[in-house]
């Protein structure tokens, strides 16, 4: 009854006698709206200036960019009433003949929170606003309007009509969310800043159109495009210093916008970022280099790849292999030139064939999966373990634990030990195998380019990288003048070789660390245990020779030890990397207040007739994170869940848990986010939209409450 009365009052109050709420200019229809139908003293509410803009024209954001002016609202309010600054929707970028503008087309709702005082008296609450805005297409027109809104004052706040509330809901949805990630920025020598938003564990291939809108003119230039990259340290955006003469601020504010590809479409997300100046962070690549790289032509890419390959020779895990090769070469000194040349060519062939094979794999995967990020093989703990073993065995060999030669057939090493061209060829293969894990972070940019190109270019760039890797040895073996520069063979060779074992061991340790990132601490036991077994096997094989029974026994034992070591790999394989998300530093899914999803728990809760909400999420899913912040974890929704007695289950799909994958498939979904809601007693769940709002969840909850009554 009270409500009805309030409604009546509103209808009366909304009459034109109280001043206009709509202003129609040549290019904009502007309307002042409130999200309440009646105002309660002391209780804040929202008003919005809604601009419906002539097609193709735009109004401006708080930072208008290189030209234009933001909309301004001047309020005339009753005594003691407070109006907060405008809360702006997420801006868009418009390139007006090369001049960059930040603003809005079609529609913009500028939200303002109004706080009436607790001692608000009278029967009506009058808001008056004078707004002015600049609206531009090619030409710009300043426009303005005067608005008046009168709302009844009541003991309880009454929400506005449903249609108006929907407008506010939509407006709130287009306001950027507070960034869930910390951000910092550093300044390069050139003076250009680089922003890092520490959103770790994102999938680069799922994100595009990243742009940072600086909150104000001055510190940062309005750029036509930004060359953001998504990497291990988060989102990195090289920016251009703006024209303000003052020093860069302690905190750089702005709005980060990006588009996330989800299984069911693309979602534009926006975050308010406040990045702290990090004096220790000196971005190495200036914007010029970054932008230049953007234009990287194939020829340049090939040159860089060649150079990159050359530098690979100095990496801690490649250098020993190469030095070993060189030392062997010195020993060969005096051999025929042709033999040496053959050796060098065979080594080069080994390197190139390995790179070609990698390129083929990359191209094939890309053809079938669509996109591939380099280092994909390192997501497999088995691969990491095997590489750690390989480093270890090469290290043992360098230390002199066993000798190359003879008929010893070890892990790949045996092949490289073969004399002549075959041996050289497999040294080349080995060099590539050990090079890859050491250099993934280092080569990321070149490979990024390679991977983003059509197949022939991808292969060309990878081959250039290989050629660079092989070049020093190739040149050495084919240039007699250089050969004469090599020192004479002597005891130094042994010492050098033994020394080189240490970088190899270090590389093995590093690979084990990588492994722990994938499997948790258990991986260490398997890896180190496996290494002991391998060392034991080598030791067994070294004792004596011949075909005695004891020898066969030792061989059998050695084989068993090696098998066991590799058994560890299998063990790792069947314990999938879910542990990584639980113990790894990149853990992102928060289970606070939620039960872990399992099919049994779900079936049980549904069977018990309880309402069930299931949230399938992943640490790298930005949309999931935003939904949590704006809809699932707000106090009102938490309270609503509690009131309705909802069983809240959360499924973590960060590592593509197979059980969840199968459920997603059953529902015809390729990925997360996915939200399911079972009303009490319902057999089938309701699939909620991918983008949630607080009101959407509350509506669902209230519908089951009503059903109960």
């Amino acid at each position, binding site marked *: 009854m009270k409500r009805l009365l309030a409604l009546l009052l509103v209808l009366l109050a909304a009459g034109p006698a109280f001043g206009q709420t709509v202003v129609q200019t040549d290019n904009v229809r502007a309307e002042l709206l409130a999200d309440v139908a009646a105002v309660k003293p002391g209780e804040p509410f929202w008003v919005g200036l809604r601009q419906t803009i002539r097609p193709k024209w735009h109004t401006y954001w708080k930072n208008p960019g290189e030209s234009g*002016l933001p909309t301004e609202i001047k309020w005339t309010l009753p005594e003691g009433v407070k109006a907060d600054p405008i809360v702006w929707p997420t801006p868009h970028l418009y390139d007006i*003949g090369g001049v960059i503008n930040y603003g809005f087309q079609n529609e913009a709702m500028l939200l303002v929170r109004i706080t009436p005082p607790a001692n608000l008296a009278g029967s009506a609450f009058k808001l008056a606003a004078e707004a*002015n805005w*600049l609206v531009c297409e090619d030409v710009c027109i300043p426009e303005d309007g005067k608005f008046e809104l009168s709302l009844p004052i009541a003991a309880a706040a009454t929400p506005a009509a449903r249609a108006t509330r929907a407008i506010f809901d939509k407006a709130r949805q287009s306001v950027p969310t507070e960034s869930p990630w910390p951000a910092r920025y550093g300044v390069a020598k050139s003076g250009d800043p680089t922003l890092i938003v520490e959103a770790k564990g994102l999938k680069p291939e799922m994100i595009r159109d990243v742009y940072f809108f600086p909150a104000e003119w001055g510190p940062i230039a309005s750029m036509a495009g930004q060359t953001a990259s998504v990497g291990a340290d988060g989102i990195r955006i090289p920016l251009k210093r703006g024209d303000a003469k003052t020093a860069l601020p302690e905190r750089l504010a702005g709005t980060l916008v990006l588009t996330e590809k989800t299984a069911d479409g693309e979602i534009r997300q926006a975050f308010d970022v406040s990045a702290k100046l990090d004096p220790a962070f000196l971005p190495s690549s200036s914007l010029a280099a970054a932008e230049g790289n953007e234009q990287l032509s194939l020829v340049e890419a090939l040159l860089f790849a060649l150079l990159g390959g050359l530098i690979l020779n100095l990496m801690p895990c490649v250098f020993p292999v190469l030095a070993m090769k060189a030392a062997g070469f010195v020993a060969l000194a005096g051999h025929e030139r042709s033999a040496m040349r053959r050796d060098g060519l065979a080594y080069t062939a080994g390197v190139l064939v390995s790179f070609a094979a990698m390129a083929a794999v990359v191209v094939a995967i890309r053809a079938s999966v669509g996109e591939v990020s380099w280092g994909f093989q390192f997501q497999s703990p088995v691969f990491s373990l095997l590489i750690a073993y390989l480093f270890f065995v090469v290290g043992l060999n360098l230390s002199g634990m066993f000798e190359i030669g003879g008929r010893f057939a070890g892990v790949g090493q045996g092949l490289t030990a073969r004399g002549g061209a075959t041996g050289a060829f497999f040294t080349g293969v080995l060099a590539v195998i050990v090079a890859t894990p050491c250099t993934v972070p280092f080569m990321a940019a070149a490979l990024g380019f390679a991977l983003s190109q059509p197949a022939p270019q991808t292969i060309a760039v990878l081959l250039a990288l290989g050629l660079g890797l092989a070049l020093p040895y190739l040149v050495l073996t084919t240039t007699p003048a250089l050969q004469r520069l090599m020192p004479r063979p002597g005891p130094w060779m042994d010492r050098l070789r033994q020394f080189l074992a240490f970088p190899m061991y270090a590389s093995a340790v590093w690979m084990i660390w*990588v492994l722990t990132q994938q499997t948790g601490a258990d991986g260490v036991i398997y890896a180190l245990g496996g290494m002991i077994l391998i060392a034991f096997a080598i030791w067994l094989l070294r004792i004596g020779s011949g075909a005695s029974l004891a020898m066969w026994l030792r061989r059998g034992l050695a084989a068993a030890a090696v098998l066991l070591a590799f058994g560890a790999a299998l063990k790792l394989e069947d314990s999938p990397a879910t542990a990584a998300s639980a113990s790894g530093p990149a853990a992102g899914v928060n289970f606070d207040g939620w039960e872990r999803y399992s099919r049994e728990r779900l079936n049980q809760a549904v069977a018990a007739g309880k309402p069930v909400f299931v949230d399938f999420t992943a640490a790298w899913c930005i949309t999931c994170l935003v939904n949590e912040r704006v809809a699932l974890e707000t106090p009102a929704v938490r309270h609503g869940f509690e009131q309705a007695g909802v069983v809240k289950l959360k499924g973590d799909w960060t590592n593509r848990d197979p059980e969840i994958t199968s459920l997603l498939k059953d529902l015809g979904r390729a990925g997360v986010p996915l939200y399911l809601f079972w009303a009490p007693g319902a057999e089938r769940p309701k699939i909620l939209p991918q983008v949630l709002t607080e009101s959407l969840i509350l509506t669902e909850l209230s519908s089951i409450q009503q059903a109960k009554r």
Partner: protein
Amino acid sequence: MSNIAVPRRSLMLGGAVVALMPAMSFAASPDLGKPAPLFTAVDSNGKTWSLADLKGKVVVIETTNHDCPYVRKHYSAKNMQTQQREAAAKGVVWLTSASSATGQEGYVTAQQANELTRSRDAAPAAVLLDPQSKIARAYGATVTPHMYIIDKTGTLVYKGGIDSIPSADIADIAKAKQYVRVGLDEVLAGKPVSDSSTRPYGCSLKYPRTSS
């Protein structure tokens, strides 16, 4: 290690960074304290002006588009004309550059430019005709009016807005700090310009439409 980043642009190869020419938007503005970009242009009376010939004089450049509400704000309030006269009295060469591209808002023929000068009672040393927006581009102008001051040695010492209150409201002119006037006084007194780079405001400069 999983999911290695593929930053497409950060350059590999530590030291091997080669400064390739960046493909920047042309609105990159020249640096203060550096020689101002040179240009040669014909004015509305057919006279050729070259910045190189103006060494020894303080020069002001004003981009204009007479139909832009922000240009109109300063002309109908006589703010621009007054400052042009003050500058001329102090021996400053004030060049108004009509930089709207042919066919765009603000584009003027020589006759139209002279007619505007007459009707608005303007007093620049010259109105330069810049129908290909070459001067605007060289100076990275983004708006009209976008203002620049060049000192006697040909060094760019000011770039930015005409004043400190970005609005289309004439009433704001009196309240605003007139950056160009203050800057000119400082330059003529041999002092560094205190507010040497300010926020330009106005309509977007009407550059030639690209072929699209």
